[in-house]
């Protein structure tokens, strides 16, 4: 029992410091954002009709998130995948997850059920439901947790940030 607890603590310490698990999380989340951002950016009006379905903004404001969110996702996806400005990209991502979770929760409470326009995973035909529901609120909160984790990781292996930091340290010697 003590060994298992010790191993769990060791793993938690490794994750907090940064290891292949945090690398995998960063790459998967980055790829997810790149994919969903690209799909939405191609057709802003279709994404706009989804934003309008949430019924949280006046009609006149609907086009703006429909135009900006896809590029926000593309940019943070790129930053996360390349490992550049990871803390800031994770902060933006965690904030987006908070907003999305809130928007979905409000519509779940209203009894609405429509495609959420989140990561467009249903387009991949792998049986992942993206219909507004409590499970999506939970998913977004969990993703927010992962972004907060990435924000606090000390060393991101295979990242531009890590490379720049090492180069900076070398030049100090």
């Amino acid at each position, binding site marked *: 029992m003590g060994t298992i607890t010790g191993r769990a603590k060791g793993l938690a310490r490794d994750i907090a410091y940064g290891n292949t698990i945090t690398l995998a999380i960063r790459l998967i989340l980055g790829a997810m954002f790149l994919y969903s951002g690209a799909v939405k*950016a*191609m*057709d*802003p*009006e*279709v994404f*706009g*009709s*989804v934003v*309008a*379905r949430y019924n949280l903004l006046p*009609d006149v404001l609907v*086009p703006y998130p*429909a*135009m*900006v*969110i*896809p*590029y*926000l996702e*593309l*940019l*943070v996806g790129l*930053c996360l995948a390349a490992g550049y*400005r990871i*803390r*800031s*990209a994770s*902060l*933006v991502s965690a*904030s987006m997850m908070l907003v999305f979770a809130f928007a979905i929760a409000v519509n779940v409470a209203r009894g*609405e*059920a*429509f*495609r959420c326009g989140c990561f467009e995973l*249903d*387009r991949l035909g792998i049986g992942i439901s993206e219909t507004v529901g409590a499970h999506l609120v939970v998913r977004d909160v969990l993703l927010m947790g992962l972004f907060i984790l990435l*924000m606090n990781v000390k060393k991101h292996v295979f990242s531009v940030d890590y490379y720049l930091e090492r180069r900076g340290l070398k030049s100090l010697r």
Partner: protein
Amino acid sequence: MRQIVRTTIRDAAWIVIISAVLGLSANTVNPRGYSLVKKSAERQKSLVRISALEAKIKYDASSALFLDARGRDEYESSRIAGAVSVPASPESLSLQRISEEHGALRGNRELVIYCGGSACGDSDTLASRIAGLGYSRHIYILQEGFPSWEGAGYPVRGSGGGER
């Protein structure tokens, strides 16, 4: 520590600003982008929600073309008699069907779009897409979807091919 927090927030703000500039700029050159002046509002106005009874009046007058925005399986299983299948998703199939039905969509009839209920969203997606492609006639959305039509006992065609 304070320096790290400050840098993180500053860079996050930059990410948001750059995204906003990119998004707004890309929209101006995207053929499917938003027209922020007038045009979009006109498109919104041209989408009118109607009840099953109002749709039936158009059906009886043969003044409207009914578009089924649901998936192909649901369409095959049961649909409004005479409706044409134009699934709202996947987008590639949807655009392909719109292009195949180009002549009918450009015809003299109004368009009535329906999906699986009031909350399915497929009607809105398809209506937006068709309006965005420049089909200027009035587009009607069957408010409560196919169940309201079927529930009212209006003409439905099933998988057996029979009308009821």
